[in-house]
C-alpha cells in the first residue's frame, strides 16, 4: 500500500531549529491528524512536503520514491495562510488552478463545477473571491485543493474559521477522499475534531514527533486514571494506595492516576472502601486534549515530570522523542 513518508526532515532558521529529524508516515486511505502548539513545525513540514520550502536534510517520499516536482502536482494543498487571488472570480480561479495542475480545459471546468456544487459555493462562481464571506472563501480554498482530483491531501488547518455545517461538509469530504485511497494529512488545533475524524494522530513539539498512533494507542501511553466518588472519606485516604496520585478533586469526587501495573486500580478501590462508602468508581478516558497537554507539558518541563511514559509502550506507538526529551527519572 502506498504511503506518504516524512523521513527525518530537519530545517533551521538561523539558530532556531524548526524541524529536528521529524519522521512519520501517512498511509493511503488514512486520515492523519497533525497536532502541536503554535510554532511546533506543522506548517514547516507541510511546506517542505509541497516543495515550497527546502529542507536542510531529510526526504519526503510517496510510494517509496521521493516526492518530486511532477509528483507534487497530484497533491491537494491548503496552505496555512489562505491564498487565492482576491480579485479573480471563483470559477475562473478554480479552473486556472486545475489547469496549472495539468487538467485540460474541459476537465478543469467540469471539476470546478463538481466541487463548487459539492462544497455549496456553486452560486458564487461568478463572484470575486474578496466578495465572499470568510467561511465561503474557506470552502473555495478547499475546492482549490481538490479541483485537480489529487491523490494526496495536505491541508494546513482546514477547519479554522468554518461554521459547524461547513465543518461537517469538510469532514465528510476528507473521509470520502481517504476512502477513495488518498492519504490525508491535516493539522488542527480543534482536538475534539481531530479525535473524532482521524485514524491516527501525531503530536509534534519543537520540531519532533513526540507521540503518534491511534487515539486509543496514545491513551495507553499515559497512566490510567480513575474517578472515585467517596463522600465520607478523609482527604488523605489515598495514602493507603502506593504509587497512586491525585490529579484533581471536585467535592467528593477525586480523579486518581494509578500506575499502569496490572490491578493497580484495585488497591485504590480498596483504600477508598476502607475510608468509607464508594458511590462511583469509573475508568476515565482521557480526551485528546488531555493527552496533548500531558505529552506537551511533559516534554516542556522534563525535570518536573512526575511520571515518565511507561517503559513498556504498546506496539505501534512511538514515544521515542518524549522519552529522550524527558531528562527526568528515566534519563
Amino acid at each position: 500500500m502506498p504511503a506518504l513518508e516524512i523521513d527525518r526532515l530537519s530545517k533551521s532558521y538561523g539558530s532556531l531549529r524548526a524541524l529536528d529529524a521529524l519522521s512519520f508516515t501517512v498511509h493511503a486511505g488514512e486520515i492523519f491528524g497533525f497536532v502541536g502548539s503554535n510554532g511546533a513545525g506543522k506548517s514547516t513540514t507541510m511546506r517542505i512536503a509541497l516543495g515550497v520550502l527546502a529542507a536542510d536534510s531529510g526526504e519526503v517520499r510517496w510510494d517509496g520514491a521521493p516526492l518530486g516536482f511532477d509528483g507534487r502536482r497530484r497533491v491537494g494543498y491548503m496552505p496555512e495562510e489562505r491564498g487565492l487571488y482576491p480579485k479573480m472570480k471563483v470559477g475562473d480561479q478554480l479552473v486556472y488552478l486545475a489547469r496549472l495542475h495539468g487538467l485540460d480545459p474541459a476537465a478543469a471546468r467540469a471539476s470546478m463545477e463538481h466541487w463548487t456544487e459539492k462544497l455549496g459555493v456553486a452560486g458564487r462562481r461568478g463572484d470575486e473571491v474578496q466578495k465572499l464571506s470568510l467561511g465561503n472563501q474557506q470552502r473555495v480554498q478547499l475546492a482549490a485543493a481538490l479541483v485537480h482530483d489529487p491523490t494526496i491531501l495536505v491541508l494546513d488547518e482546514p477547519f479554522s474559521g468554518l461554521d459547524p455545517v461547513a465543518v461537517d461538509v469538510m469532514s465528510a469530504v476528507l473521509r470520502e477522499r481517504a476512502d477513495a485511497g488518498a492519504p490525508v494529512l491535516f493539522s488542527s488545533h480543534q482536538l475534539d475534531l481531530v479525535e473524532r475524524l482521524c485514524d491516527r494522530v501525531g503530536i509534534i513539539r519543537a520540531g519532533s514527533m513526540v507521540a503518534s498512533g491511534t487515539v486509543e494507542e496514545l491513551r495507553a501511553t499515559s497512566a490510567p486514571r480513575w474517578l472515585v466518588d467517596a463522600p465520607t472519606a478523609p482527604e488523605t485516604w489515598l495514602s493507603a494506595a502506593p504509587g497512586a496520585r491525585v490529579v484533581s478533586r471536585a467535592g467528593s469526587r477525586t480523579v486518581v492516576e494509578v500506575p499502569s501495573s496490572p490491578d493497580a486500580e484495585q488497591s485504590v478501590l480498596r483504600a477508598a472502601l476502607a475510608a468509607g462508602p464508594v458511590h462511583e468508581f469509573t475508568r476515565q478516558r482521557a480526551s485528546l486534549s488531555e493527552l496533548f497537554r500531558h505529552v506537551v507539558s511533559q516534554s516542556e518541563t522534563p525535570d518536573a515530570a512526575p511520571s515518565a511514559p511507561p517503559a513498556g509502550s504498546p506496539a505501534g506507538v512511538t514515544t521515542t522523542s518524549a522519552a529522550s526529551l524527558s531528562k527526568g527519572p528515566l534519563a
Partner: protein
Amino acid sequence: MSADPTSLSGWGGVRLVAGREIRQRIFAKSFIWSTVVLVVLIVAGVLVAKLIGQDTTVLRVGVTSQSQQLEEAIEATAASYGATTEVTTVTEDEGRAQVADESLDALVTGTPEAFQVVTKSDLDATLSSVFSVLAQQAALADQIRDLGGDPAAVGAAVAGASVDVVSLDPPPEVDGSQVLSGYIVGILLFISLQICGQMVAQGVVEEKTSRVVELLLATVRPWQLMAGKVLGIGAIGLLQVLVLVAAGVASATLFGLTETMKVDLGATAAWVIVWFLVGFTMYALLFAAAGALVSRQEEVGSVTTPILVLMMVPYIVGVSIAPWAPDSPYVQWLSYLPFTSPLIMPIRVALGAVPQWQIAVVLLINILIIPVLVWFAGRVYSNAVLRTGGRIRLREALRAG
C-alpha cells in the same frame, strides 16, 4: 481525468500563467480607461501639430488689372519672407468690398510704379514688409531708368549676388512636427513602460500578499511564474502601445499632416514598438525582482523608486533637452547607455538625428544585457517570493538559496 503532468513543466506552465494575466487585465476598467485617455491625448497632440502647422497661413492679396504686373513680384518677395500668398485679380470696387469683409488681406491699386495698398485696419506684418520692398524696388528702378540703365538687368544682378556660407557644425534641421513627435514618443514610452512595470511589481506583490503564490509554487516553478507574468503583462502593454501608435499614425494621416511633416512616421512608429519591447523586458524584470522583495502593496513604492528614477532621468532629458538640442552630449550619452536608451533613443529617431548603425549597435547592447537580467531577476525572485514579512534586502535575496 486527463492529466498530463509533463506538459506543464516548461513553457506550458508559462503560457497558462501569461494567459491568466492577459485575461485578468485586458477587461479591467483601469486598463481600458488608461488606453482611452492616452488615445485621446495622442489625437489631441496630433491636432495641436496640425494647428501649429497652419500657422503659415496664406496671405490673400487682390490686384486690379492695372497693378496685375506686380503679381509675380509679390509672390516672390513674400516667399523670401517664408510666407505663402494667393493673388487674385479683381476690380477695385470688388476688391475694396472683399477687404472690408476680410476675404482679402490687402488690395493693391494704382500702377506697378506707384501703387497703394488698401487694408481693413492694420496691414499684416509680412505683407507690410513685402510692399515696402516692392516700393523700394520701384523707386530704385525709377532712378536706374533716369540714369539710363536697365532696371531688369540690375535686378537680375542683385538677385544673383549671394554670400557663400560655410558652416563648420551645421545645426540639425528639426521642424515642428519632429519636435512634437519626439514629445509624443517620449511621453508615450515613459508612460507605457512605467504603467506596465508597476503592473508587474504590483502583480508580484499581490500574489505574495494574498499568499496565493504558495499555492502556485506547489505546481509551477518560480521562473515559470515570473516569466509568465512578464510575458502576459508585456503582451497587454504591447497591445496598448500598438493601439496608441495606430491612433497617432491614423490621426496624423487623417488630419493630412503627412504631406507637410518632415518626420518619418513609419520609422518612428516602428522604432517605438521595438524600443517598447526591449525596454519593457529590461524594466519588467527589474520590477519583478523588486516586487518579490516586499510583501505589502504599501511597500511597493519603496523598492520601485530607484527603478522609476532610472526611467525618469532619460525621460526628462528626452523631453526637455532633446527636442531643442538633439546633439547635446547628455542626450547622446543617455541614448547609448542600457536602461536609459529605450526611453531616449526613440525620441532621437523621431527627431531624425541618429544614423541607423548607431541605433542598431545600441539595440544590440540592450538585447545582450537581457540574459543577465533574466538571471538576476530569476534569482532574486525565486529566493524572495516565498519569504513574507519584512522587506528583504537585495544582497540577501541574491545570496540565499
